C-alpha cells in the first residue's frame, strides 16, 4: 500500500505545491503496520503547513520504523543511518546546517535500547528537531523480540511474558530536558496530526512517542501494544487542536475549557479540557500523571509537557546565523597574517 492517504489530486498548499513531493516511495512494510499511518500523518502535516520539502532532513536509525523516511517526502534528503544512532547523525547534520528541519523517525529498539545513550544526550542538548518514536514494544525487523518499552506482563507471540520494567521514553524525556513531550497513537489520526503540527512550530526538541502496533508480531491477545488494547486503554489528556500562525483564529476561547498556547512561530496550540485540568508546562504534574496512568494501566496521550524559550543547541553553540556547511573560504580560513602571528608566538 502507498503511505499517502491522498488529499484530492489537484489541491495545492500555501506554497503552491501539490501533495506529490510530500509523498515518498511505495511502502514495503506489512499492510496495517502502525508505522504506515504515521508516515501518512507526516505527509499530511508537512503538506498542509506548506513546509518546503528541500528544507527537511529525514533521519532514522535501523528497523521497520527507520525505513519509513523512504516512504514520505521524496524531495527531501534522507539518511537511514545505523541502529540507534539517528540522534548523533541528526545532531551533526543540524550543527552543519541550522536551517534544516530535522525530522527523525526511530523505533523503540533504536531509542530505548541500543541508542538510549545517544537519545538521552540529544535530549539534554535540546537539539531543535522532531523526534518520533514508532513504539510497538517489539523489534519488528528482527521478527518480534521484546523491546525495552514492552510492558511488564505483556505477552510475546510465542507466549513468553515480559518480566522486566519498561522504559518510558516520555518520562525520560521530561526528566532529561526535552522541551516538548507528547504521546499519541498511530490509530488516532486527529490527535497525531495536531501534535505533529505543534512539533513543527516548537523551537527546540520535540519528542513524540507514538504507540504504533506491529500487526505481524505484537497485535495479539495479551499484548499491551495491540490495536485493540491501545484503543481500550488510551486516555487522552485533552483534545488537541492547532491553528497555524498564518490563519485567523475562528472560534472564541471558552474560559476555563480551553488552554491556548502561543508557540514560538505565532501558531496556536489549543488544548481542550477532557475531564481533568492539565497544565503541560508543569513538570511535576506531568511526571505524576504519567506514573499514575502507568499504575492504573492507562495509556496517557496528548501533550504531556512543554517548555518554551529554552536555549537550543544552536543558541548554546553560539554559531553564526548562516549554515556552517556553506560558509565561503574567506570566512573559515584565517589569513596569512594570522598564521604568521601564531608562528611568531612559537619561536
Amino acid at each position, binding site marked *: 500500500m502507498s503511505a499517502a492517504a491522498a488529499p484530492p489530486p489537484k489541491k495545492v498548499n500555501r506554497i503552491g505545491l501539490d501533495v506529490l513531493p510530500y509523498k515518498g516511495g511505495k511502502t514495503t512494510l506489512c499492510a496495517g503496520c502502525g508505522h504506515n499511518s504515521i508516515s501518512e500523518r507526516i505527509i499530511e502535516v508537512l503538506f498542509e503547513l506548506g513546509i518546503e520539502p*528541500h528544507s527537511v532532513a529525514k533521519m532514522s536509525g535501523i528497523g521497520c520504523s527507520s525505513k519509513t523516511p523512504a516512504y514520505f517526502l521524496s524531495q*527531501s*534528503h534522507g539518511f537511514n543511518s*545505523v541502529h540507534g544512532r539517528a540522534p548523533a547523525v541528526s545532531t551533526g547534520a543540524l550543527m552543519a546546517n541550522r536551517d534544516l528541519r530535522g525530522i527523525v523517525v526511530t523505533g523503540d529498539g533504536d531509542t530505548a535500547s541500543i541508542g538510549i*545513550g545517544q537519545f538521552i544526550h540529544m535530549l539534554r542538548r535540546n537539539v531543535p528537531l522532531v523526534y518520533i518514536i514508532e513504539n510497538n514494544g517489539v523489534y519488528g525487523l528482527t521478527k518480534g523480540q521484546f523491546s525495552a518499552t514492552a510492558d511488564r506482563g505483556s505477552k510475546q507471540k510465542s507466549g513468553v511474558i515480559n518480566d522486566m520494567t519498561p522504559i518510558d521514553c516520555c518520562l525520560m524525556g521530561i526528566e532529561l530536558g526535552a522541551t516538548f513531550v507528547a504521546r499519541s497513537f498511530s490509530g488516532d489520526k486527529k490527535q497525531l496530526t495536531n501534535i505533529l503540527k505543534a512539533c513543527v512550530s516548537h523551537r527546540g526538541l520535540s519528542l513524540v512517542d507514538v504507540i504504533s502496533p506491529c500487526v505481524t508480531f505484537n497485535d495479539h491477545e495479551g499484548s499491551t501494544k495491540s490495536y485493540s488494547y491501545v484503543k481500550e486503554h488510551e486516555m487522552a489528556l485533552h483534545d488537541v487542536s492547532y491553528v497555524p500562525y498564518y490563519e485567523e483564529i475562528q472560534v472564541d476561547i471558552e474560559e476555563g475549557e480551553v488552554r491556548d498556547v502561543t508557540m514560538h512561530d505565532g501558531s496556536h496550540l489549543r488544548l481542550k479540557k477532557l475531564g481533568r485540568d492539565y497544565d503541560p508546562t508543569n513538570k511535576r504534574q506531568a511526571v505524576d500523571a504519567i506514573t499514575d496512568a502507568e499504575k492504573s494501566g492507562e495509556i496517557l496521550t496528548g501533550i504531556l509537557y512543554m517548555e518554551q524559550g529554552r536555549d537550543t543547541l544552536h543558541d548554546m*553553540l553560539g554559531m553564526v546565523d548562516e549554515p556552517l556547511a556553506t560558509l565561503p573560504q574567506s570566512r573559515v580560513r584565517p589569513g596569512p597574517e594570522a598564521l604568521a602571528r601564531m608562528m611568531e608566538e612559537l619561536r
Partner: protein
Amino acid sequence: MSTIEVSPVASRTGGQSYRVINDWSIQVATVNGSGSQTANNILMRSIFQMGIPVSGKNLFPSNIAGLPTWFTIRANKHGWIGRKKEIDFLVAMNPETAREDVLKLEPGAAVVYDAPLKLNELRTDLHFYPVPFDKLVVPVCPEVRLRKLVRNMIYDGVVGHLLGLDFEEMKKALYKQFGARKAKAADLNWNAIQAGKQFAEESLPKMDSLWAERMDKTAGKIIIDGNSAAALGCVFAGVTVVTWYPITPSSSLVESMIGYLKRLRIDKETGKATYAVLQAEDELAAVGMVIGASWAGARAMTSTSGPGVSLMAEFVGLGYYAEVPAVIFDVQRVGPSTGLPTRTMQGDLLSNALLSHGDTHHPILFPSDPAECFSMAGEAFDIAEHFQTPVFVNTDLDLGMNNWMADPFEYPTKPIHRGKVLTAEDLDRVGEFARYRDVDGDGVPYRTLPGTKHPKAAYFTRGSGHNDRAGYTEREDDYVNNVDRLSRKFETMKKWIPAPEMQRSEKASIGLVYCGTTRWAVEESRDQIAREYGVETSFLRLKGYPFTQELEDFIHAHERVYVVEQNRDAQLLALMKLDLPVPLLSKLRSIRYYGGMPLDARTVTTKFVEQEGL
C-alpha cells in the same frame, strides 16, 4: 657519550682533557602533579634559543598526581631529535625512583640530586652534585604553598650553570612561558632560578664534561607539539564541525583547537562562531555527528585514540559504503584494550586501514612532525570531501603530546577543495542526478547537500544495498557494480595521497620503509649504520595509504627492504602484503619495536645489524 672515556677528575678550572659539546641528554625525574613541566619546558627552550637542536619527551603515568614521571631533553648538534636511550645528566627529584634512576646510568654521567637523598653513596663512577632544594627555596619563596612548584625552578638554575647555558635565554624563555599577565609569578620563578645558579657557582665545581655552546641551527624554527599543530591545521583547513570524547593522548588536540578557534574564527561583525565544537557522549556519537555534519556539507572532524577507534567501527563502515566524508585523527597509544594509555605505539595501522565489517578500505595519512600534522590536516579534509569517505590521520602519543622543534608552518597555497558537490544551478545544467553513478570514470560520484532547493536534489542515504540512484536494492549485479566502483575510487585516491619522501642511493642494495615518527629513529640509525658498519641504505618514508607506485618501484630497486615500525605484529608489513604484488613480498624484512617508548636509533641499528649479520 657512552663511547667516550670520561676523566673523573675534570674540573671547571682545569684538567679537562675534552668537552662533550651539544651532544647529551638530560633526564629530570619528578613526581607528576608537582609542576615540573614548566621548569622542563624552560630548560628545553633555553637550549633551543641558543641555536642547539633539541627535543623533549615526557614519560608520564596514567594518573593525575603522585606517580613518577621522567622528562628527557636531548641536545644534538647534528640535529638528531629522536629519542636517545642513554642518559648523560640526571636530575633526581623523586625519592621513589632516585635509586633505580642512578643505578641505570652509564659510568661518567652527571647527577644533580636532592641532597638528603644521599645518592652519592650508591656509586663511585658518576659525578654527583648535591643540592639542598628545601633550604634554597625558603628565602626565594616565602609562601609555603608555592614552594613545591618553585623548588623545581631551582634545578633549572643549577643545570643551567653546570652546562653553561645562557641565562639571558633562560630568562627570555621563562617570561615567554608565563606571559605578561603572570609577570609576578615569573619574577618569583626567576629568583628561584638565580638561587640555583648562585648555589651552583659557589658550591658545585664542574666535574663532568658536558657543555652547551651557542650554535645557529634553530633559526626560524618553532617549538610545538603535534596535537596543537594538527589543531592549527584544522583551523586553517576551514574545519566547521568538531566533535570529540576525551582520551589520552588525543584530548589536547581538540582542547588546543578550541583555543585557536576562539582566537581566529569568531566573526568580526557578529561576534559569533564560524564553527561548532561539541563534546560527545562517546566516540560512537562523536563520529556519528561527524558523519551527519559532513553529509550536510560541513568540514567535520573528530580526534581519538585506539579505544575510540574501536567504538567508531560501525559508523566508519557506513561512511565508506554510503560515501560520507569524515576526518578522524587517531593519536595512537599502546593497546590492546586500555593498554598503556601514556605510552606510544603505531598500533592502529591495520584497524585504521580496514576498520568495520564487510570489505572496507580507508585512506590514511602519516604525519611525522608538527609541520606535517598541520599540512596533512588540510589534505585530509580535501581527500575526505573529494572522495566522500572517512580519512584517518594516524599520529601517535610521541608526536601528539611531546614538544618538537619544527619548521614553521606554511600557509596553504591551494584553495579549500569541497569536491563534487552539485548546486541547484548545476542540477539545472546537468538535468539528471544519480547519486552513485560513476559519471567521470574515476569511481567518484557527485553529491548534493541537504537544503539544496531543487526538485532533483534529494537522494536517500543508506548503509543498506543501493543502486546508482541511491535506491534500495538486493540485486547481485547492483551490489557488485557498486563495490567495484568503490575499489576504483580507492585506486584514484593514489593520485591524491602525498608522495613518499625517499632517497635511493645508487650504492645501496638495502632499503628501509617506514612511516610517522619512526622517521626520527631511522634517519639517525642510517647514519649509524653507514658510519659504524660502512653500509649505505636507501629509504622511503610513506606519507599515506593507499600505497602508491613509488613503493613498488622502491622495493623492485633493492635486494632487501626492511619495514620498520612500532608494533608487535608488523602491521605496516601486513598491509603491504595485502596490497603489493606477490613477487615483491619475498624481499621484505621486518624491524619492530613495541615497548611503548619513542623508538630510538640504536634499537633500529642493533636489530638491523643482527638480521644482516654484520
